[in-house]
């Protein structure tokens, strides 16, 4: 299990080599011996290869901003787990239960972003708005307002897009 990171625009990977008597890490090609002295409220103090460093550290999402020796670094850790939004997205939307179309919000050929509205449907006295799950282009809308549909009915089809695996 290697942790990938990017600092100063350069990519690297980190690995834990050992933990006793001190933590030993590998960063890229070089190995380091680390011991943590203190931490708290954004401050840290640690020693790397026998040299003591004192500084500040702030975590913002996937990035950690570090200030040490009067210099600021930004270390970014790309996510390993994705929401899976792009992979294997469906090219069509079918009704999960019977109902009636209240409104159509998109047009064929329209390019949509994730979250853009497609249709408003009513089933079992409950209105629901169907939105695009990811960026896509509408190929065709197969229903019109006031149309009644069965479970499994084809409602919207999208242009097929080749997606890269994340």
């Amino acid at each position, binding site marked *: *299990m*290697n942790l990938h990171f990017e600092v100063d625009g350069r990519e690297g990977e980190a*690995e*834990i*080599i*050992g*933990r006793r008597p001190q933590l*030993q890490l590998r960063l890229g090609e070089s190995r380091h011996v680390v011991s943590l002295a203190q931490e708290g409220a954004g401050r840290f103090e640690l020693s790397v290869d026998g040299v003591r460093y004192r500084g500040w550290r702030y975590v913002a999402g996937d990035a950690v901003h570090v200030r040490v020796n009067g210099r600021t670094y930004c270390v970014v850790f790309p996510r*390993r*787990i*994705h929401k*899976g939004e792009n*992979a*294997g997205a469906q090219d069509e939307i079918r009704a999960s239960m019977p109902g009636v179309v209240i409104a159509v919000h998109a047009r064929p050929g329209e390019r949509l972003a994730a979250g853009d509205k497609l249709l408003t449907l009513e089933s079992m006295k409950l209105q629901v708005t169907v939105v695009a799950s990811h960026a896509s282009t509408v190929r065709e809308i197969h229903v019109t307002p006031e149309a009644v549909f069965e479970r499994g009915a084809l409602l919207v089809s999208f242009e097929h897009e080749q997606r890269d*695996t*994340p």
Partner: protein
Amino acid sequence: MRALESAVRTGTAEFRRRYAYNKALAAELRARQEAARHSRPPRDLERLASQGKLLPRQRLELLLDPGTPFLELSTLAANMSYAGESPSASCITGIGVVSGREVMVHADDPTVKGGAWYPLTVKKIVRALDIAIENRLPVVHLCDSAGGQLMLQSQLFPDRYMAGRIFRNQSVLSKMGVKQLALVFGHCTAGGAYVPALSDYNVIVRGTGAVFLGGPPLVKAATGEVVSADDLGGCDLHTRTSGTCDYPAADELEAIAIGREIVSLWERAVKWRLPEQAAEAPLLDPDDLYGILPDDIKQTFEMREVIGRIVDGSRFHEYKPAYGTTLVCGYAHLFGYRVGILANNGILFNDSAIKGGHFIELCNQNNTPLLFLQNITGYMVGREYEAAGITKDGAKMIMAQTCSHVPKLTLMCHGSFGAGNYGMCGRAFDGRLLFSWPNHQIAVMGGEQAAGTLAEVKLRQLKRAGASADPAALAQLRAETLKAYEEQTSAYYSTSELWDDGILDPVDTRNALAVALSAALNAPGGIPGNGVFRF
């Protein structure tokens, strides 16, 4: 507790001869393990790569916490079966650390006949899950198997401890509250589909992962339906429609990342016993073990020299040192955990059997796990000993050992012959884990003894029939017996049949036992109590 002092003289010819012999055995072990783990036809490796799959050992290394030990079990299972078609019995099992938790890992090996299960594969998986049950170890399954080897189905399907036992064990684990995670990297077909289904959590890789009770060929044969593996039981079907699988993963790396995150949410085990003191490396050099172990199965060696090269600081508190001297008993520490050690320094007599039984009782009273170091050719035989009750005394030792509620570990250091195997916690006695050294041999009796006994019996038969003994025929009988014994008593045969949980290089013993003991302490001790001792 004083450190043991060594009486070994490393300069002698005997030491050097033994050293060369055992070092060569260790080298042979490593070479055979290396081949079993990695040697595959290039075509099988290419096929995996073309499917975008990682090798099972790559998956394993990514799963485990970096910089942590992995105790692989039964690497050489099936090495003497199926004409070598199933290296490592087509699967990997072992105990490691994932997200800070000790787990049992079971990984199918799709580089061997698509990961198909041979009878010994099933036995190895059942054994891994038995270990998980007995030690309350969570399990991570890395699934990628074509299903059972149809040609050998009668040996892997119908009986009580065959394939069904895998799924029975999974259900029992779940009932016990011991968690299981399955990462579906490839096909889980027929029974194999139950592995992820019976796991508490599972992750499936899109495109390559599939779960189905019947694969496409079976479905076509049964109903004529033509359907691809992905449509029949792939990621999207099972994560969106059927709900059989919990987490979709875009690729194997993501699946492993999700799996590690799931494990990180499992509660940490509460150990039955904790280390009493800080760990301390042995003072005596484990490398000397090569020179201490004999190069002849009939020869013996001083067990205290072995103990001193395994335990913390080489410190050993010997119990009842003046009595029953052919069995060494005492307390020591392994990475800070207290253990009670029983080690053979010769055959078992009345007094050593009694002492062993008593020491086992003391360890049970003191909640101390037991470690048996076997080198036993048997109990003493003869009229004098029978009259003194050696059978009763051996029975008492077996009773005490069997009824122990503390965890037991066994190491076959050299010979394990006959009834001595029983009292010293052989395979049948539910030790949590059992390992052998490469020089180990096991049989109901020694090969020469067996050859001699059979020849003696044959001779008597001929005499009763009034025929005369043909020396050549007798010699051939002796030779054939010896040859069969040689093959079937070796550690490699034993490990092939899964009579042990793996062969260890002697210098790896301390780490292996430490991982094993730590795993064992995840389960509380049993209910104390003994059967009837025949006094």
